[in-house]
């Protein structure tokens, strides 16, 4: 089919245009009597195509923009946002924020980041790699990816399709106390979802690849094949028997466990006493072999950032050392609430990395001998206050150190505090597709519910 190339992808406003909007906000806030103010402007463009069963399903051109404003009258805060960048809208948005600040409370923790912590030298992290991908090329790649999945195994019976996307975003953040910084970055991806089997035993699975530069993506064929293999191996899933056993989380599932840990050491949960790791700084939370480090300046990494959402400089730091909790995840507000200083995590962690152990995935299976591999988790069953954990799961039984029958419709449960202490090993199979980077995690003594 003929698909005219569309010039929309070209159109990000320039950095100078966004800087002018930020300056306009700050000036307007000052004029309206704000003690201090901050503004963030985000713009993005993107193209995504989805194909299904050899035909184009959707073709989407994305163009997003957002302006966020924060004003302070002493320690009273007001915020407002808009997608309209016109001068009138900028004035109205600032006015809305100022109006709100009349009704919020005096809260000493509110305010801009402390000037001492602001980023001064902004390193180039090599995050911007635009992909000159035409619509036709995107479609071609998606078709190749899906065809590879359908050709992998005769038991692949249906497809939810394959998608290819590329996007580029630009952010400018400025404050009335002199910070002005911008970041620009790209993200490209490809995914495939297919179905194996028919009738009462249909199993769906996926694979995806994502990177800052197109050259770092897995090939369309590799993504398609992997999706198909994952779907086929789930055929014939049944429930496991209820009992306690070692459980190996593959990296995609392990990331969620690390996410629960990060939630428990996040400032907003700590100052509200809504964390099962309250007052655990300096304490043994994991076994001595576990180390977690944040690497915000890794070139081309998905979670890299030279400064956080408040302009605070990011830096490499150890969060867990020898299993001992060495820090929290704080922004300026939560840090002040706790009487601490910000850790540069307004907006989240940056390439939080669980140091790999010595065994690869197969080595971990042999080490486990008998138990369960979890490849998929369902639902939200983790309580951040108590650490009580109970989630739906699917995966494989492990017998004699090898993958055995697929299982589904089971739950894995425990208390996260105990589960963290029972972390026997971290695999070398690190998944770098996100802000949390971890290999497989092998946990002892998890309760599995099934038949």
């Amino acid at each position, binding site marked *: 089919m*003929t*698909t*005219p190339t*569309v010039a*929309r992808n070209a159109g990000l406003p320039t950095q100078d245009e966004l800087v002018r909007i930020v300056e306009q906000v700050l000036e307007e806030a000052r004029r309206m009597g704000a003690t201090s103010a901050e503004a963030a402007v985000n713009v993005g463009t993107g193209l995504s195509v989805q194909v*299904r069963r050899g*035909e*184009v*399903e*959707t*073709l*989407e*051109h*994305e*163009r997003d*923009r957002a302006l966020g404003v924060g004003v302070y009258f002493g320690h009273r*805060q*007001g*915020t*407002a*946002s*808009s*997608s309209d960048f016109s001068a009138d*809208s900028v004035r109205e948005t600032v006015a809305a924020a100022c*109006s*709100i600040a009349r*009704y*919020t*409370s*005096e809260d000493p923790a509110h305010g801009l980041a402390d000037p001492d912590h602001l980023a001064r030298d902004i390193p180039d992290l090599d995050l911007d790699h635009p992909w000159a991908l035409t619509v036709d090329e995107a479609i071609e790649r998606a078709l190749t990816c899906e065809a590879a999945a359908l050709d992998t195994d005769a038991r692949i019976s*249906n497809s*939810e399709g394959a998608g290819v996307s590329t996007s580029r975003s630009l952010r400018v953040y400025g404050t009335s106390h002199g910070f002005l910084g911008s970041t620009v970055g790209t993200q490209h991806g490809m995914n495939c979802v297919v*179905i194996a089997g028919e009738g*009462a035993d249909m*199993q*769906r699975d996926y694979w995806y690849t994502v990177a800052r530069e197109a050259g770092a993506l897995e090939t369309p064929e590799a993504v398609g094949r992997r999706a198909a293999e994952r779907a086929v191996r789930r055929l014939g899933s049944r429930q496991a028997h*209820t*009992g306690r056993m070692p459980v190996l989380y593959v990296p995609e599932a392990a990331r969620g466990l690390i996410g629960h840990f990060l939630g428990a050491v996040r400032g907003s949960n700590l100052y*509200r006493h*809504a964390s099962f790791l309250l007052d655990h700084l300096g304490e043994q939370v994991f076994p001595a072999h576990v180390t977690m480090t944040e690497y915000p300046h890794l070139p081309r990494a998905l979670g890299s950032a030279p400064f956080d959402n408040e302009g605070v400089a990011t830096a490499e730091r150890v969060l867990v050392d020898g299993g001992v909790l060495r820090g929290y995840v704080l922004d300026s507000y939560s840090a002040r609430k706790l009487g601490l200083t910000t850790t540069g995590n307004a907006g989240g962690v940056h390439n939080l990395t669980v140091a790999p152990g010595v065994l690869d995935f197969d080595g971990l299976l042999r080490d486990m001998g008998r138990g369960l591999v979890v490849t998929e988790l*369902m*639902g*939200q*069953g983790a*309580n951040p*206050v*108590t650490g*009580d954990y*109970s989630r*739906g799961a*699917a995966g494989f039984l492990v017998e004699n150190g090898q993958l055995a029958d697929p299982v589904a*419709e089971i*739950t*894995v*449960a425990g*208390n996260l505090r105990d589960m963290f202490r029972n972390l026997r090993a971290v695999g070398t199979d690190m998944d770098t597709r996100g802000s949390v980077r971890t290999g497989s995690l092998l946990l002892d003594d998890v309760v*599995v*519910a*099934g*038949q």
Partner: protein
Amino acid sequence: MDQTLSIATERLLTPAGLNEASLEDVFTRLMGPSIDAADLYFQASRHETWVLEDGLIKQGSHSIDQGVGVRAVSGEKTGFAYSDEIMLPALMEATGAARAIARSGGSGRIQAWQRGSGLNLYRSDNPLDAMADADKVDLLRRVDAEARRQDRRVEQVMVSLSGLQDIVLVADNEGRLSADVRPLVRLNVSVLAEQNGRRENGSAGGGGRHGYTFFFDEERALGYAREAVRLALVNLEAVAAPAGTMQVVLGPGWPGILLHEAVGHGLEGDFNRKGTSAFSGRMGERVASEYCTVVDDGTVPGRRGSLNVDDEGVATECTVLIENGRLAGYMQDRMNARLMGMQPTGNGRRESFAHLPMPRMTNTYMLAGPHDPAEIIRSVDQGIYAVNFGGGQVDITSGRFVFSASEAYLIENGRVTRPVKGATLIGNGPEVLKQVSMVGHDLELDSGIGVCGKEGQSVPVGVGQPTLKVDALTVGGTEA
């Protein structure tokens, strides 16, 4: 309806100098011989949130979003582009991008505009303007005080209030012009209670397509505060939940999330057209016990999931999904209905102008059955009585679904005894309702808190059900 159309026209088209003639020009450019359908979705929304934490009005925020989405459909193909500028040049540019899905050539013209008529389920007043900011903040403080005065063990209280006005106008290639002006309010209370070093949370809330005065009627807001405290205190006493497959009694109202996950998603038209749902090709088959009749009903006045017209301009309906245990209907948007040779059911929904519409639920609930709720409890020797839930999730292909209890009790010898810690329940959609052996006469809808996510798009929904007994469901506790 005439009023909503004039409000929407005035807000969305007039400022940009757009009128029916310019929309006709857009469709002339958008349509071609291989385009089956096309629509423009104009939207402007205003949203605010107020948060109280630690006794302080910590945060207030206000946002304005507007834009237009342009869609062209050719067979199973969809071209889509959007712009956050509602202006003719941006609209024409988006149109060019969207129609790239189909071969060029030919032309189509709008013959005459027909103004669609929708339902009248809520008022068109803007909730944000109908109450002074000082009164909103005062409401938060009163809710905080009510929670704190319930019990000395209450350590933290967080209250949030949010309001939205969403104005939408849909124009399509057949000349249909529809509009909706949708209010939505929500209040949530979350408390943390502490006893001998043990901390537990409890949260409660509600809302709907109303103004903020909804929260004053019947002291609703204060009721949420008392309910949140009650839940936290119950959880302070909770013991470990059992693990394994057992009888489960689900309370009325919000536990209807079972239906949303177990059968709702699997009966959305898109999955069934593609044959990827565990319910595909099973229309008319028995998928539930004879006590089960499940509907999706977008027409309940003032409900969070209700709509006068859906996001394709189709008036919402009460669609029977399961009738006396047999699969009876799908939820459809226009595209999937056309491709399956069916009628749209008013279930075409989208998160915003920047997202494509697809079949989505509105308010999904099970009708009342013949049993007395007390009799249902008495019939269980050993099992779980689950009355409050957090979220859920489903894999529509295998039919497996989960939902997580946040308030549950043991049933021992026909009596509700000790509270147990939250646990995830897991089952299989096409099988679980066959296990429903008793259905209470106490149908309730939830309090107005549901958010449904599908393919990255969130929309507000409602659920409901009477008390019901499932003979075998896997409970993910820790007492193996």
